[in-house]
């Protein structure tokens, strides 16, 4: 397996409680990995360790390593803003920035000084809005506030905004849980289209979504990884009792 993210001996503590217990997994490149498990099992915590979002919550402690392309993102000399540029995040609820649709897409490119002039920015905005499947709906009102969009459109805007900083990895923290079925489907198809170019890691609590999206599956329970493997293997022939129980709807 061509691993993009490698997690080695990862432990996470919230004040005194241990949230993640000795995690050792690898996340395959340019595939969709789905992390699933019952609520409170540590799915989101694990996801947050990949873009160093865990440190935004006070009182957390972390030991072990998370390697992206072989480099430990928790090394002292690593610039956290660079980590987050390479590892993008699609949050649970869309949260557009307080600016226009256009400026939302430009924001990330602008802080990282990725383009030279207005023309390049304009082209990039169009490009990423097209990838997110939003261009046709918004190209006539690019300078309207981002909040004038529907929630589903806002989430696609957030996708475009995230892709615009040219990440290699996309994290999704239940990215469709706030959306209506049609918008969810739209986001899911985007993620499937994008998986050839991006390594995608999705946390979800809906089994059906996991089955639709996953190439690779990680099943977690009470802060531990119980089982990890290709979607076909895990869904058809789970090796572990707990995974089987979850897939059959007993947990």
């Amino acid at each position, binding site marked *: 397996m061509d691993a993009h993210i490698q997690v080695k001996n990862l432990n996470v503590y919230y004040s005194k409680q241990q949230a993640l217990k000795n995690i050792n997994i690898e996340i395959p490149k340019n595939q969709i990995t789905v992390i699933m498990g019952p609520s409170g099992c540590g799915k989101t915590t694990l996801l947050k360790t990949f873009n160093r979002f865990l440190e935004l919550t006070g009182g957390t402690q972390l030991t072990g390593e998370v390697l992206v392309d072989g480099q430990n993102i928790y090394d002292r000399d690593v610039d956290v803003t*660079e980590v*987050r540029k390479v590892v993008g995040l699609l949050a649970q*609820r869309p*949260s557009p920035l*307080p600016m226009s649709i256009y400026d939302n897409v430009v*924001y990330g490119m602008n*802080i990282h000084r990725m383009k030279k002039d207005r023309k390049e920015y304009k082209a990039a905005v169009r490009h990423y809005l097209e990838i997110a499947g939003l261009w046709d709906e918004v190209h006539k009102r690019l300078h309207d506030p981002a909040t004038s969009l529907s929630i589903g459109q806002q989430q696609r805007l957030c996708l475009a905004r995230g892709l615009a900083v040219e990440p290699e990895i996309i994290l999704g923290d239940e990215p469709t849980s706030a959306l209506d079925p049609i918008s969810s489907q739209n986001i899911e198809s985007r993620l499937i289209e994008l998986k050839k170019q991006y390594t995608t890691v999705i946390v979800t609590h809906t089994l059906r979504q996991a089955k639709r999206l996953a190439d690779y599956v990680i099943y977690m329970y009470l802060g531990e990884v119980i089982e990890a493997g290709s979607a076909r293997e895990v869904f058809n022939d789970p090796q572990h009792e707990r995974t089987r129980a979850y897939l059959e709807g007993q947990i």
Partner: protein
Amino acid sequence: MGFLKKKRWQRRHLVETFMKFIMRFSLVIVAGSLGLILWIVVVRGTPALSLDMVTKIPEGGYYMGKGGGILNAILGSLYLASGGTLLAMIFSVPIAMYLKTYLGDSKWGYYVRLSLDVLWGIPSIVYGAFGFTLMIALGLRASLLAGIIILALIELPIMTRAMDEVIRRMPIDLEHAALALGSTKFEVALRVVTRQMLPGITTAILLGFGRGIGDAASVLFTAGYTDRIPTSLMRPTASLPLAVFFQLGSPYPEVQQRGYAAALILTIIVLAVSLGSRWLSARLNKYTIK
């Protein structure tokens, strides 16, 4: 009729009608008072309002009905309120930021907010007396500077608390969204937080300005009153609220009328500032996340 019962005048319906009446009555009282105030000021003030009133300073015999205007008070009030607002801003923005960033909802945060709320409630005459005592102790005379300092003290708690409330409502998701794109904390503060907060902060500042320009009691002791336009921070200065006060106290009807005209000018300034701030914050508000 099927299952839907006809509306009857039951007790609960009567209660609702009565409550609605009380609410409407309150609205009428408030709107009516505002209307009456404006009406009296306009009716009594307009006849005395002339170009001279707003372009000239009092000439000899002005207070017995002769020529001149109250440019001294208009400019004095603008200087006082602008200076006070600027000074208060310099201190209230960092205090509000400190409250949000470091004190939060801690015990100290609670005490700081409590003190600000108490300060907000202190009558301005007390501020005036305090300023006066301080000036005597320091051997200072009534001056524009003293007026500005005392107005800044009055405006500070209003502005700080108003900003504090605005900043506390900053959605955390917004910061996270910007951080997730690889922003530094400073970029988040500069490009995202300020954009989100600007309308609220503008409103807070203008709220302070409104209180400052209308205050008579505090400037009475500290800024004094003069017929000249202030040319230095160390000179005393006139102000509109005091111009109203002195002229209304005059036995001459013409002068009294000019008092109303001064009140009208003050009202127009305050109205312009608050309408302006509405307009400005609506413009700035366009992009904020609700």
